């Protein structure tokens, strides 16, 4: 079977009788088997997916107008999304064996359109990390070079698509966790405006930063998945009540646009030369297409990471308090009293990176430090948001690299948290401000690894962002 990059091509093949749900599932299952040393899947829903495919194929055969819009779409989901009746662990020990009693709203909406979920994929524990090495299940490997990381935290989501084990994947993006691995793996990764997709059923890392994100081979598939998942949800009070556009139908693009990039970003000392060169080549291409691409000032670039790590760890330290070994999840067998039920379960159940962030978050919220750290970071957040808004009053998009380099070697980033945190420099802005962003592949670096580039748009401008991305990718 040839590799299908779009749902459209799959659906055409189904229509022509060249394939069907069951064949697709069999194909992807064999690819999963073939690539298992990459350590992508935590759990494969083989029997279930086959059964569901069978049912859908019958439905289609009986009357092709009765199948949902996602018939033929085979999806993997990151181990932070609740899928009723299935285990979800956030790649942690503390949730080992936990079966979700409900499905995330976003997932339910996809299921209602007849998507098939083929398995649950690895990630950095509780979405904290940029390399997918911080997992109870061990690291996931980049399909382009298995000695390299796929990025994180939705690293395995990216590889699952990259390695052709599914058509698309749902991940989560709090500081770039969908976009950075997408670029490390040479695929599309998209994070919508904050509040566009309901967070109900997404294991919370940082409540005011988290969004479910989409990894795919094509912009059009991302657009369709977004369209179906997006919209108000009574179970998420922060989800927007604003109407959802038919993104999948608004992908044609004709205009000439104005794009800004930050001098400070593209000339940053930490930016790899090859990535920089490719990015500037891309900028030239955009200019040749007739678009305006200009450097603008953005004096806050180096303050985004400090503010980001204060705010996200603060929220996370509180969000992770519910993991206490009492109502669900892991309870330490070494606990001899009530206090130890907490301390031992949590200490044994969380990885070091997670504990580090909990400690940091606890610190910045603690008495005597709250104003200097948490309030300060909230103020910096406002400065960044206002400056970003100002830029969007003149420009349609902001262009950024996705990461300062291509994928790192496995084992090299885990020793220096600060260095790892600083590598988020290009992606966190979108989460700080709540704007949509998409990572598009830009080809290969000299070193053979994929490079990507990132586009950001103002809030609620998914349609513009997706259609432009479609045009230029």
């Amino acid at each position, binding site marked *: 079977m040839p590799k299908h990059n779009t749902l459209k091509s799959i659906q055409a093949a189904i229509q022509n009788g060249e394939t069907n749900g069951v064949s697709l599932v069999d194909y992807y299952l064999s690819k999963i088997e073939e690539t298992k040393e990459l350590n992508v899947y935590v759990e494969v829903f083989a029997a279930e997916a086959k059964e569901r495919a069978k049912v859908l194929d019958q439905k289609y055969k009986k009357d092709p107008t009765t199948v949902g819009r996602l018939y033929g779409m085979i999806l993997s989901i990151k181990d932070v*999304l*609740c899928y009723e009746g299935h285990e*979800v662990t*956030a790649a942690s020990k503390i*949730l080992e064996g*936990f079966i*979700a*009693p*409900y499905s*995330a709203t976003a997932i339910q909406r996809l299921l209602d359109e007849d998507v098939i979920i083929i398995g649950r994929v690895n990630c950095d524990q509780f979405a904290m990390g940029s390399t997918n090495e911080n997992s109870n299940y061990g690291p996931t490997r980049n399909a382009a070079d298995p000695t390299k990381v796929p990025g994180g935290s939705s690293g395995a989501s990216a590889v699952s698509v990259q390695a052709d084990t599914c058509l698309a994947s749902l991940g989560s993006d709090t500081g770039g966790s969908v976009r950075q691995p997408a670029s490390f793996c040479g695929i599309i990764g998209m994070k919508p405006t904050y509040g566009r997709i309901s*967070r*109900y*059923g*997404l*294991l*919370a890392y940082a*409540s*005011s930063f988290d969004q479910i994100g989409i990894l795919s081979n094509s912009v059009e598939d991302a657009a369709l998945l977004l369209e179906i998942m997006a919209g108000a949800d*009574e*179970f*998420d*009070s*922060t989800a927007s009540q604003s109407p959802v556009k038919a993104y999948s139908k608004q992908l044609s693009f004709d205009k000439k646009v104005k794009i800004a990039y930050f001098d400070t970003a593209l000339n940053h000392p930490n930016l790899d030369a090859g990535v920089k060169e490719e990015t500037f080549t891309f900028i030239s291409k955009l200019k040749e297409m007739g678009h305006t691409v200009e450097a603008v000032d953005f004096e806050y670039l180096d303050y985004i990471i400090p503010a980001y790590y204060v705010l996200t760890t*603060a*929220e996370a330290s*509180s969000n*992770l*308090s*519910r*993991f*206490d070994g*009492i*109502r*669900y999840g892991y309870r330490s067998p070494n606990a001899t009293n*009530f206090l130890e039920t*907490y301390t031992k379960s949590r200490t044994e159940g969380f990885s070091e990176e997670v504990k580090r962030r909990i400690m940091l978050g*606890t610190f910045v*919220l*603690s*008495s005597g430090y*709250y104003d200097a750290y*948490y309030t300060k970071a909230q103020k910096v957040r406002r400065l960044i948001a206002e400056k970003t808004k100002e830029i969007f009053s003149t420009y349609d998009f902001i262009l950024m690299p996705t990461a300062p380099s291509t994928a790192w070697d496995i084992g090299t980033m885990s020793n220096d948290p600060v260095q790892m945190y600083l590598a988020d420099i290009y992606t966190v802005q979108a989460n700080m401000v709540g704007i949509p962003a998409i990572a598009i592949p830009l080809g290969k670096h000299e070193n053979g690894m994929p490079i990507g580039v990132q586009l950001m748009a103002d809030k609620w401008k998914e349609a513009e962002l997706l259609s432009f991305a479609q045009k230029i990718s």
Partner: protein
Amino acid sequence: MSVYEKYETVVGLEVHVQLSTKSKAFCADDTRFGARPNTHISAISLAYPGTLPRLNKKQVESAVKLGLAIGSKINQESRFDRKNYFYADLPKGYQITQDASPICIGGQLTINANDAERTIRIHHIHMEEDAGKSIHDMSPKSSFIDLNRAGVPLLEIVTEPDFRSPEEVDVFMNTIRQLVRYLEISDGNMEEGSMRCDCNVSVRLKGAETYGERCEIKNMNSMRFARRAISYEVKRQIDLIEAGGKVQQQTLNFDPVTGITTPLRDKEDAHDYRYFPEPDLPPVHLSDSFINNLKTQMPPLPQELFKQFTSKFSLSDYDATLLTEEKETALFYLDLVKNTPHHKAAANLLINKIKPYLNEQKSSVATFPLSVKSLADFIQLIEDGKVSNTIAYQRIFPALIETPTQTPLAIAEKLNLIQNADEDFLQQLVQEVIKKYPDKVTTYQKGKKGLIGFFMGEVMRLSKGKADPKATNALLRKVLEKQ
């Protein structure tokens, strides 16, 4: 003067009112009291991964109503915060509350205790959620957790340290209970836990301008215990100071069995709650029209009804207190006096006959079979002198309950109870009585005028209650003088 009289008691309260909404504060679980353990729960109240809070509109409305009732300023832009701490009955590891920006600011309540009036200033009212229940005495090695109560909506009323005696605290709590029942936002039932308070107690020398160090006695769920706890704590603090010691700020527990307060073992860090704004709940912006709409839904309040009953209807404080205890009764009274000008008689009827009847039947004013029009006629019958109070209450009232569609007059006539003031009829009875007791007549004439009561009784008895008392009395006097 005893050493204790040198000091003044100072108390501030934090009152927790559990709301009588159908569902919880931040999720749609049932809130009804008394269910089997862990049956009013959901993924949200159990803090399952991936769940988020959903604010109950009724909680917001209840908060505004309470604020309006005590004269608070309604904060039109309030928000929620997380109070972070670990406890087995706190599933999320934090409580959603309002710390920085509560929904109601200020307010006051005037109470009457120990024959003096005091105005208690309210600092603020905020919305929050209750924790679950931990049971520690069911087994030696384990504690058991019931999460039915986890997430039930609470309003917390925080007062200034304006109380000067345990009695004032008691009266205040009763006033709050009455108020929340009037507003129908809570049943204010301390025994069931729908109202409890923490008492912040300190002492200072009378005349001092600054406050002493305070101790907090937590979770008082009975006013009897609260009064004892406060009294004990005040004495303890005074004894300590008099002995040269200093009161340390502590959180205390009161043991009703031993009657003493003891410190809850606490470490400094345990109280770093790391409040920060709740990111999962948008702020609450209340428009003028939202608030005004709730204003129109406000019932008349107990204190204003009390004033109305004592001034407009000239009732005694005692009667007015009884009638305004429950809103239902007060509103019924208001309805009744729309139909009759006899305010005192109406009060008596309601207090002395109708309420006892309802208590006996274990029913309420809502299902009382008699209409206010019928009751007004009943009262008029008595006022007209057609029947005595006693006959009316004892004979006509029960008959009316049996056949509520009949008028009181019709019933009186049917039962032959209409008082007779006919001169001949009375004369006959009076003559019979004075013929029977010639000695008593003599005694009366000699000056023992009190015997008129005896003669009255005899005439009434003979007439089976039908003799008109006024006419009988007048006739008796006339006849006895003449003898």
